[in-house]
């Protein structure tokens, strides 16, 4: 009797593990399949990348695409632009948000609750519509994290 229960538990345990790993495998496939596809396309010749039927692996591996991109003077300029924009906005938003976050964490003051509840959400509702795509990416990745997380992060235990 005791043994049967233990064996039964074991079967359940293995079934559950298999299910978990199978689901993870499916999700993993869906996540990386497009990435692999793009990666493999980057080694194809132009006419091969738009041929039908599509090939999973390039027939003739070519580095021409990389050569073309890396010797393009426009790329160097745009990489510099990316660095300037991302480093600049990161420094700015972290500095500004750290100052603001410090004020919220350290002091008690009248407008605190009012600002805390509206600060982050206001940023989300009217943000980044009129900005460039790069700016959009930076704002949504960094500024929102810093401002949103510091001031509006939920406290599941209601310790405060």
């Amino acid at each position: 009797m005791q043994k049967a229960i233990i064996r039964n538990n074991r079967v359940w345990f293995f079934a559950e593990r298999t299910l978990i790993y199978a689901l993870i495998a499916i999700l993993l496939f869906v996540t990386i399949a497009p990435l692999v596809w793009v990666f493999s396309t980057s080694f194809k010749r132009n006419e091969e990348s738009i041929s039908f039927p599509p090939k999973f692996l390039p027939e003739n591996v070519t580095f021409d695409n990389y050569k073309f991109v890396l010797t393009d003077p426009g790329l160097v300029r745009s990489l510099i632009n990316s660095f300037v924009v991302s480093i600049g906005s990161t420094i700015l938003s972290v500095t500004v948000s750290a100052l603001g976050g410090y004020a919220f964490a350290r002091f008690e003051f009248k407008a605190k609750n009012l600002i805390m509840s509206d600060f982050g959400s206001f940023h989300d509702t009217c943000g980044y519509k009129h900005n460039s795509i790069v700016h959009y990416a930076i704002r949504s990745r960094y500024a929102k994290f810093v401002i949103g997380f510091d001031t509006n992060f939920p406290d599941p235990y209601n310790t405060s």
Partner: protein
Amino acid sequence: MSNILAKAEPYLFLTPAFGILLVFLIFPLFWNIYISFHDVSFITILKNWEYIGWKNFVDLFNDPNFYTSLKNTVLFVAGSVALQFGIGMLMAVLLSQKVRAAGVLRAIFIIPWTISAVIVAFSFKFIFDYNFGILNYILQQIGLQQVGWLADPNIVIWSLVIANMWYGTPFTMLFITAGLLSIIPSIYEAAVIDGATKFRSFLHITLPLLKPFIVINLILITMWSVNFFDLQLVMTGGGPLFASTTASLYMYRQAFEFGLLSKGAAAGLILIIINISVAFVYLKLLRR
């Protein structure tokens, strides 16, 4: 003197943040409102801006394409949020089940979110292509008809939802994982001692404790989906006709494609109102 200084100190710390908000958010917002009540287009931009009252809004609500775009936004947002949240939650919960190499898997799952939306759009444009796309090739191999993923007006919005799902799901996974990690494990141990099954402890412990995380996550992904237009712009340009134009892209197309800046501003204003009301509803749910 020192008393006044002490009182002002927190506000001094907040001044830079509010300065930035003022310059980059509040000023553009009012500028937007100003433009939406004037006649500004590419033709009149250098002349006097004539005050025309509510005409832009009237034009907007008389435009059948605007209703199409609102309908598209509803479909796009509902589909994106449901799929992103459902799958992201599943990922987070699966990876919290003492899986081997969970850290590595999390790192891999997060990759799509770190890619620029424009690159995602180009990749999916290739995958969904009617003639040489991989999806149609697979369908053909199984013996099914080719599907005009980006050409069929009834399907195109769902193709965009799939692309957005791939792009946005990792954020939910990350956010919910943070929430799961914040739950103290001893609560689960207590539940096990009390004889709770895994499913019941998920329902009665995990979900209530995750609630704030879930609500904030839903607010963020809803707003991002409403405002999102990179995918639509690159993958279809809003076409065929207006079949994949969401409200955000409608605003962009009116303003910068057709040159009707003030009509675009009016559409933007309506979008802000939609966003604020959505956030309001979610926050009400959170408070309850």
